[in-house]
């Protein structure tokens, strides 16, 4: 249905715009740009910065266009001497307490405050600093908060509360002492934060950033005694191009592989391989739970933000989680056992680096239980406990990888395309779509259907599981067995499904949960900005790669067949249990 239109006047000209929008959005609709800072469409309209002020005829003062509705006949002026002075002064006041270290800042060149200063022609910062320099919050394994760079826009608080329902941060104090803080200033690492990194993704400045580990990785790459291998998550191939100056959501798998090789990684592998492995284990786990009347619904366990969320907020429901490790962790465990055996090298020499769209993966790889390869080798090689090592050594976000490419002079867009290495780089279309919400479910169905029914799945593209609706559901017919499944992205939607489970009203057998909006392609480690339009382009690219793959079902991946024949023997078998499955802890809220 066509939405009702209203007549408005902007800068003396008449326009028709959709009714019900803010002045700001109405102006955007007709192509008139009003500068903003704290406002972020669909996330936050805190109206704290005072940059988007306009004049409205009849109004006593300037009005903030982000929170004021455009009404029939409204007469708006978007620039005047008074407006320009107000915008400039408001920005200068914010800049008074913002460090002027743009040259050495992580967000240099990708900072909304910096952009706005240029846009408004700020040439000096006349106001003196009024706040003491606050402490940096280093407590989290995933994220670092530098409150000195915070402009109190409130976006991080809004995304944490409204999109994720985690409420790890809020404003604390008042007036000059206002700040974004965790409970009792304990730091993100010491409260119920899921490390999803959506706060870092929406932060206009460098007040919240990922913990950068690129220096350590470069040191290992330059160390001849180490074999540094890399795995890339599905969502990187549709994000890294963007961060290297190419089009939004551009599919750049081949260039990414070439660039990683140029960087000096000895082997470039694909987390998609491990995603296929996950489908085998998780698919068989689901079948086993259904057959043996195990805990249902079973919920996917690929997304580490989600894992920490359920551990904090719904610890009673942990038995619903699949015991499968995430693809990243399966990869690490396999790389330092199966692949180390193939290479016939000491597993301690292998350094596994993950490129992830995710900040929570940094936390996940340091979970104390993620040392399966060490336990596998411990007796065989008589390793002392002090030599223990993690399955995955480092996690880099898409943004960090882009920085590394730039520092090492990789001419990304002009690189010829290259292929992943064997065998841990061989994957299927099913592995690729893990990066989009609904993808794990679709991949699982492609395999589970054929395993259960013994018949080939005719229509492998399950459109009902695609798209960005918050909770999608479907009923699958597996040879007469009806199976209700659901797919949720964002923790707010996951919470809805969990509450159903705790009330005993969940109608589902299998649920996919992804922490971030849109799935991993909208992860907290992806390029900034990440908007819904950009998420859509990344999603389109992932499904395109799926269509281009000769093999699109995990169980048909020859490398997966080989690892079961040569090493794991069978899904849910003894070796799988030791290397590919895990357990969870009750954390509670603190």
């Amino acid at each position: 249905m066509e939405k009702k239109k209203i007549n408005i006047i902007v800068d003396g000209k008449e326009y028709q715009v959709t009714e019900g929008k803010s002045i700001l959005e109405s102006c955007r609709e007709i192509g008139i740009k009003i500068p903003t800072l704290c406002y972020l469409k669909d996330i936050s309209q805190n109206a704290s910065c005072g940059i988007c002020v306009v004049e409205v005829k009849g109004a006593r003062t300037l009005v903030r266009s982000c929170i004021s509705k455009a009404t029939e006949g409204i007469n708006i002026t978007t620039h005047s001497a008074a407006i320009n002075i107000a915008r400039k002064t408001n920005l200068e006041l914010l800049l008074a307490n913002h460090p002027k270290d743009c040259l050495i800042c992580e967000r240099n060149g990708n900072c909304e405050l910096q952009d706005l200063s240029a846009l408004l022609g700020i040439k000096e910062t006349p106001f003196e600093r009024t706040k003491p320099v606050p402490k940096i919050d280093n407590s989290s394994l995933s994220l670092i908060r530098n409150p000195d760079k915070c402009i109190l826009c409130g976006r991080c608080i809004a995304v944490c509360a409204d999109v994720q329902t985690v409420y790890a941060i809020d404003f604390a104090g008042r007036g000059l002492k206002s700040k974004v803080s965790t409970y009792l200033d304990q730091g993100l690492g010491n409260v119920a934060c899921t490390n999803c990194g959506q706060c870092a993704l929406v932060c206009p400045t460098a007040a919240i950033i990922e913990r950068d580990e690129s220096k350590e990785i470069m040191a290992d790459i330059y160390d001849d005694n180490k074999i540094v291998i890399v795995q890339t998550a599905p969502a990187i191939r549709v994000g890294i191009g963007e961060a290297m100056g190419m089009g939004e959501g551009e599919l750049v798998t081949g260039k990414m592989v070439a660039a990683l090789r140029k960087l000096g990684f000895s082997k470039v592998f694909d987390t998609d391989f491990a995603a296929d492995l996950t489908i085998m284990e998780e698919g068989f786990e689901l079948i086993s739970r259904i057959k043996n009347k195990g805990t249902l619904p079973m919920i996917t366990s690929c997304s580490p933000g989600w894992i920490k969320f359920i551990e904090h907020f719904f610890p009673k429901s942990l038995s619903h989680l699949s015991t499968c490790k995430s693809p990243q962790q399966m990869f690490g465990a396999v790389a330092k056992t199966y692949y180390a055996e193939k290479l016939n090298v000491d597993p301690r020499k292998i350094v596994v680096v993950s490129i992830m769209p995710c900040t929570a993966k940094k936390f996940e790889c340091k979970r104390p239980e993620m040392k399966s390869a060490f336990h596998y080798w411990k007796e065989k090689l008589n390793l002392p406990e002090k030599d223990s090592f993690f399955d995955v050594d480092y996690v880099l976000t898409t943004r960090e990888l882009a920085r590394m490419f730039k520092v090492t002079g990789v001419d990304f867009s002009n690189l010829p395309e290259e292929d992943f290495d064997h065998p841990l780089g061989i994957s299927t279309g099913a592995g690729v779509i893990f990066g989009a919400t609904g993808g794990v479910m679709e991949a699982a169905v492609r395999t589970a259907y054929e395993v259960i029914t013994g018949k080939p799945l005719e229509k492998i593209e399950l459109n009902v599981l695609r798209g960005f609706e918050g909770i999608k559901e479907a009923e699958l017919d597996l040879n007469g067995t009806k199976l209700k499944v659901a797919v949720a992205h964002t923790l707010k939607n996951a919470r809805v499904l969990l509450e159903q489970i705790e009330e005993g009203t969940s109608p589902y057998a299998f649920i996919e949960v992804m922490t971030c909006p849109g799935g991993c392609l909208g992860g907290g480690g992806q390029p900034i900005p990440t908007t819904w339009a950009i998420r859509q382009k990344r999603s389109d690219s992932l499904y395109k790669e799926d269509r281009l793959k000769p093999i699109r079902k995990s169980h048909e991946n020859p490398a997966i067949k080989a690892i079961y024949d040569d090493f794991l023997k069978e899904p849910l078998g003894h070796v799988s249990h030791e290397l590919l499955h895990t357990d969870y802890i009750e954390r509670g809220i603190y």
Partner: protein
Amino acid sequence: MNVNLENQVDTKIIDEIITKHKGKPGELLTVMEEVQEANDYKYLDEASMGYISSKSKVPLSQIYSVATFYSFFNLKPQGKHTIIVCRGTACHTKGSKILLDDLTTLPGCKDAFDAGETSFTTDDKLITIKTVACFGQCALAPVVAVDGVIYSNVTSEQIKKLLENLQEENKDENIRLS
């Protein structure tokens, strides 16, 4: 004086407070206020805030946000006696800074205020010194509140005497001016 800093409010009392105010507007503020009052040291201890959060389903970060927004809430144990000096404009022009200076002679107090604190409690948990922005009693400036009673037109001599009396556990009820 042996002070138990782990002092927390009995969860049964918190339950009663929450039940009493359930569904009323401004529920959280009232609950927090009464729980603070129920604490022997007149502060919101960590355990009680955690309990309020779990019972009322208000996230901890929001409880902390409220507790730090209002200067009425204390996150540290308070002394037996509390002296609050008004630092509003009217009181300032009538010399409230001098009154505060008289009080910050307590050991450690000046350092705390210089470091940006707005509250200081003596180690023996006998006296707490606080400032507020305005009591709204500007006509009677300078204004000081002692254990909830507001005194007006306070002089330096009076405040010194008051401090002395409080320290000797011999509170002079007659410092109220004529």
